[in-house]
């Protein structure tokens, strides 16, 4: 779902977050992704799930997530994933 660029930044943010949560729930339902902050440490996102998550994120936001970014800090919460995606998008621009 491409993000309309004429929207304000806050709304843009919300759309990205919603999308991320949607993707997470499709891979591993039943977790409260809005508030959870230890997805990797508590093994909700194990290495195989991350392996499925990354291509989804790459497709949705048209970015490339290099292996070096696969660290717990970037994936422990939906907010962290959001920050990662946003940063990569800006870097590519």
């Amino acid at each position, binding site marked *: 779902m491409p993000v309309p660029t004429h929207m304000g930044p806050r709304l843009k943010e919300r759309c990205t977050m919603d999308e991320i949560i949607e993707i997470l729930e499709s891979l591993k339902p039943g977790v409260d992704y809005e508030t959870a902050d230890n997805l990797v440490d508590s093994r909700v996102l194990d290495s195989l799930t991350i392996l499925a998550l990354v291509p989804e994120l790459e497709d949705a936001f048209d970015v490339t997530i290099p*292996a070096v970014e696969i660290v717990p800090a970037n994936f422990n919460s939906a907010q962290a994933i959001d920050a990662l995606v946003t940063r990569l998008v800006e870097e590519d621009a």
Partner: protein
Amino acid sequence: MDFSLHSYFSILYIVAFLPIVLVAYQVVAQRLRWAVLLVASYAFFWAISSKLIVFILISTVSVYLAGRKMGALFSERDAFIAQDKTRKKELKKLYQKKARLVCGLGVGFNLLLLACLKYLVFFGEVTGSLLALFGLNVPVAVPYIGVPIGISFYTLMAASYLFDIYRGTIAPDTNLGRIALFLSFFPQIMEGPICRYGQTAEQLWAGTPINKDNLYRGSVRILWGFAKKMIVADRLNLVVKPIFADYTSYDGGVVAAAAVLYTLQLYCDFSGCMDVALGTARIFGIALPENFRHPFFSRTASEFWLRWHITLGSWLRDYIFYPLSLSAPMKSLTKAARHRIGNRYGPLLAGSVTLFCVWFANGLWHGAGSQYIFFGLYYFVIILLGGLVEPLAQSVCAKLHINREGTAWRTFQWLRTLVVVFVGELFFRAEGMDAGLYMFGQLVGNFTFESFTNGAFMAIGLTFPSVTTEVVGLCLQDYAAVAAMVVIMTIVAVVEERGCCITERLAHKNLAVRWVVLYALIIAIVIFGSYGVGTAPLDPIYAQF
């Protein structure tokens, strides 16, 4: 315990080497302390491997040069980009290619060195057997130079250094001495942990003075490691060694006991050595990464490998699993698989290819032998099956109204994981693939409690012909000592799993408490340790890998 310097448990190390290094470190000026550590590390290396020291020197220099070359390339690229921002993407790509070449050469050279020194004999044998399959009985003669201590560990560290520079995580180091110290730091050289440059290089350089808190915490940790090794690991050797050496003489019950006891022995030896390593580093104010996190609390085999030999697992994950899985060909495979067989099994299939590579590497890293590769692939199958069976297990449990977070299920998972681990370690320790298969056959086909009821098990032991004609084994008191230690370790583990760091809490208690703890550990080691006449202390197991 011998008087020659051959491990952290030799007398010479404890009474001479370590104290001298500690004193030298403390009296020297802060900016020179790294030099003390470096000299000590190379002296230690020389004491164990003598002339083979040349190989760690070669690795260090190669890694230093490759790192600087990559740094030069990146600076060049950034200069060009500053001039002409429009070519940013293509320049990045071009220089990435150049850097990849340098990184590949650097890593490849070091891996080749590792292969030649450690695996050549094994590869020779494999080639020989392959040729024999085709009827060609060519003796494959292979030169044997020797295996420098810690080569499996420092090679991985060297590779990670180059990979991290390539990926832009760290900047290359212009100081050869610092890289040399990073790779050779003596507490970690024998059995790891496998550190990343970003984790330890800065700390090693800092020259933190020895303060009483660190000295105490480090000493307690070192003594704890000694206790584990000498009270449990060395003691169990009297029973484990004969069973594995003479494996055709024992029934399935004894084999099962051997698997359990060996796993306990291996854990106490390896984690005990880690305690000594991390404790020693702590005295110098250096925090090395943990290699164990109470692995026997694991509920699945995957979780086990997140708690056992942590630094190896994370190295394989960060430098093989993710890069391979996210490489272009693998991504297209994943995509195609997701289309064909859905979101669950698609990534799993693609992931299984990299998983295979990771576990093959894990097995091979442990040793030049077919049973180590078998060990790696054993876990590959277990973990893959776990992933495949997961949705089925979920629906079955839902139907049977089994609470997957309840105590009963968790106990089942825990026991199941223990069995998987014990069987894996059985093959790991067996004297070759044949022995492993034979013993496993006995385990499942000839399991009986007979040897425990008729006294045969208690009669197992080693002979020391120069001392006595009797067989020296373990008596009930020995097992009681082991059991007591296991209970104490479990209590410590439970406390630490809850997040409380015991040594830190102890460091803040008053003098009497602190000294009582030290005395208790020292006395326990001296009295209950397994050393002296009629014992068979282990050489640190992981030092051979």
